[in-house]
């Protein structure tokens, strides 16, 4: 049996001294979110309006992950579009029509803004409006995934925000739960079974797996964030009357239990019913985590900023695996959405927001952590310096939420340490 995490906000020492940095950032831009969003929403296509760099980023970041024809592409801006030799709006309409002709199965087309399209002020919302008139059987939306406005996972935030006005209106008196943030399909299915077992419902998910089943929203909607990077989406949902259920994030046995408990309390599920639903999977999660405790306990960990998942992950690793937290960096710290996470971090944790990668590397080398969580550009260079690393991106592309994945999550951190120990070659 585990004690749950407190779900009431509290003051904590580690938040009084956040290191705020600016400088070179070694993180992806928001376009990268398309790599998972285009698989998650099965009838959506993402058309980036950008440069060759954007297209190159997508195939480099996606690289080995693409096994089928991708439902994304780039409308590459060329010199003639900039020189005014071609009307950029007409060009965009032409390319969008080309995409839709090629993929008649597409029900939602996202026009995705990039750094260059933002700088030349190409109005994608007007383009979406225009295209919606000529392509009546497709929903055409727009959002920005540009690096000048979004960091990595914020791309999903901006994407989901653009979906909120499209959600059908729920009757004011109907109480329903909306789980917000992309989850692996297998995790979503597990949560559906748990909510069913509690008799909690109806439950909807945003994003939905296809465009026909958008979740309804209204005054009776309570939403539960599955991901910590959804500030704008949450704001938009509030604007439609939905209310947030304060909770930590569903990582680890305790995190998942507290997350589910917050929903159960909001919907008046009895303690007995809650216990009956979660006791077996919770026991499995605790058992699975136990296997990694020895490998991780007392090990010192350092997080470079990446996905905004860093704070919930650090909390989980500290409380459930006994790891010692050195620096926990995040691109952005959304204090109110982390209200149940931040108080759980030990006061000695150095939080940092933003990035100056050279200074942070200096701090990391000084701290000599047992494990460093960082992006793909830093991992091999740090390994070569003798530090064990965990690629942060794997934490975004692996099912890690929920009871059944708690062990898998710990395994991701234990594996680099185990590998270092088993290799007998220098």
């Amino acid at each position, binding site marked *: 049996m585990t004690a749950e995490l407190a779900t009431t906000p509290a003051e904590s020492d580690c938040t009084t001294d956040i290191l705020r940095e600016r400088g070179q950032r070694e993180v992806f831009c928001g376009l990268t979110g398309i790599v998972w969003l285009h698989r998650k929403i099965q009838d959506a296509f993402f058309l980036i309006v950008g*440069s060759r*760099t954007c297209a190159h980023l997508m195939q480099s970041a996606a690289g080995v992950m693409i096994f089928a024809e991708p439902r994304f592409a780039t*409308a*590459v801006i*060329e010199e003639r579009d900039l020189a005014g030799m071609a009307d950029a709006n007409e060009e965009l309409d032409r390319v969008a029509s080309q995409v839709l002709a090629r993929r008649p199965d597409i029900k939602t087309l996202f026009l995705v803004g990039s750094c260059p399209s933002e700088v030349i002020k190409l109005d994608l919302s007007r383009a979406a409006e225009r295209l919606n008139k000529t392509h009546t059987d497709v929903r055409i939306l727009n959002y920005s995934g540009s690096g000048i*406005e979004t960091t990595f996972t914020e791309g999903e935030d901006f994407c989901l925000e653009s979906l909120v006005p499209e959600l059908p209106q729920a009757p004011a008196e109907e109480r329903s739960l909306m789980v917000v943030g992309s989850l692996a399909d297998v995790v979503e299915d597990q949560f559906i079974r748990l909510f069913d077992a509690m008799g909690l419902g109806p439950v909807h998910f945003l994003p939905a797996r296809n465009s026909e089943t958008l979740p309804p929203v209204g005054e009776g909607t309570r939403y539960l964030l599955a991901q910590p990077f959804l500030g704008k989406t949450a704001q938009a949902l509030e604007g439609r009357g939905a209310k947030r259920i304060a909770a930590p994030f569903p990582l680890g046995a305790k995190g998942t239990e507290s997350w589910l408990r917050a929903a159960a309390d909001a919907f008046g599920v009895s303690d007995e019913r809650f216990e009956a639903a979660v006791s077996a999977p919770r026991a499995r999660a605790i058992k699975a985590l136990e296997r990694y405790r020895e490998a991780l306990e007392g090990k010192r960990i350092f997080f470079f900023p990446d996905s905004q998942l860093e704070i919930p992950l650090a909390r989980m690793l500290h409380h459930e695996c006994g790891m010692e937290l050195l620096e926990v960096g995040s691109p952005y710290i959304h204090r109110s959405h982390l209200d149940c996470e931040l108080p759980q971090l030990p006061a000695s944790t150095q939080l940092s927001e933003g990035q100056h990668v050279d200074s942070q590397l200096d701090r990391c080398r000084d701290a000599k952590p047992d494990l460093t969580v960082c992006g793909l550009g*830093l991992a*091999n260079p740090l390994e070569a310096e003798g530090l064990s690393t965990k690629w942060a991106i794997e934490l975004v592309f692996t099912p890690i939420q929920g009871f059944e994945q708690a062990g898998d999550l710990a395994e991701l951190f234990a594996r680099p340490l185990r590998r270092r120990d088993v290799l007998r070659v220098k």
Partner: protein
Amino acid sequence: MKLTVWTYEGPPHVGAMRIATAMTDLHYVLHAPQGDTYADLLFTMIERRNHRPPVTYTTFQARDLGSDTAELFKDAATDAYERYKPAAMIVGASCTAELIQDDPGGLAARLGLPCPVLPLELPSYSKKENWGASETFYRLVRGLCSPHAPAPGDPKPERREGPPRANILGPTALGFRHRDDIKEITKLLGKLGVEVNVVAPLNASVRDVTRLGDADFNVVLYPEIADAAARWLEKAFGQPRTTVTPMGVGATRDFVREVAGFIGVDPEPALDDEDLRLPWWTRSVDSNYLTGKRVFVFGDATHAIAAARVAVEEMGFELVGLGAYNREFGRDVREAAAKYGVEPLIIDDYLEVEAAIEAARPELVLGTQMERHIAKRLGVACTVISAPVHVEDFPARYAPVMGYEGANVLFDTWVHPLVMGLEEHLLGMFREDWEFSDENGPSHLGGHAPAPRKPAPVPVEAAPAPEPVTNTVEPTAPGEPVWDDDAMKELKKIPFFVRGKARRNTETYAAEHGTDTITVETLYDAKAHFGR
């Protein structure tokens, strides 16, 4: 605007990064927004480099636009010098920074940094990665070597004593097998008594680049990268440059003769190698089955043209397509295509390349990582011969593609994905054997074969099941001759890897003879007409 699913080349600043990362003490300050740092992972992950690329990104954000992005650039450049103390710096803009026109070159010049600073103008909306690499290398060579060049009209300075010396130009970070090619070519030059003066940019220091003028001639190993710089060196220092890419046995020998001509020595000692095995391997009877295999070649112009020659002259394949994605070398590709009697395909649109490969029905594709993807979808064998690269193109073992060992590597890697000779015959003879099917792929390649499934016995009284639609025999396109049922069944008895060729030949034959319906007779008439 151009609809792009996959791209063969990155933007030109990635080309500049390939130069900076290749060198030991050059630093690149790139005016760029957050996100452009993705390019670091190309080097640290794909190439498994153990150092971060020497690139500082200014990382401007929306809120900086219109206020102090120029200030941001100056701070970043100053800090980068302080921290890394490079021997020289290159400065420039990525696609977004190009739009805000901060003039990184001018800003950097005013900083008065205590090292040479070379400004780069790389137009992101019209140029691409190879051009960016070439332009960067050219600017660097010109900027660093100009002070050492004799003034126009002055005689060439007295040659330094000692053996003939060559520079090897063009190898970069993230290049296809550059790491091993330079070893092999260095060895080859050694057989002619030629010493290598400088290899650049790979593993070169800024000081090394200033010494390029000391060589007697230049080896242009990768013209996409080094042609412009070598032409300038030829003018400035009177150094001849090689024009043959030493890939394959014949080309390597031609290269040896070209070099021997530059320095006036006998090429003989370098015309063969005790470890060269391709000539015998390809003449041995076991290789008979390679004869006339249909091969489609696509890549960067240099590798594609060289591969076409090896395919035809050294493997005995039939070339059914030749193309390149870099228009800058389109003329060379057109010339080569004319020589082999195929249509040149000079295009960087992945979807069109896919269509061309599908139409040519090759048995083997020699291409880039993109064609590997296409070939996989079409179920055709493929070997990668050119960038764009992926992690498997950086093997742990020594695997050049140039010089004599390179020729051995080409033989092995091109034959490997094919069905072996005897297996091919057996598959042709016993098409009905459900455990031994061509659709399972070559037997020496594991992993992709579906488990053979014994067909369920068909009840005698049941109506014959409709023929399952498979993607291995597509319907005939409109306007073309129609296959009757029996002919289609007969076609399916032909093994998968030659079926495309048989089909194409039969359809061509039918069209030429004004036959609307293809029967079993037509199929065998065509077979007799074309041979295997």
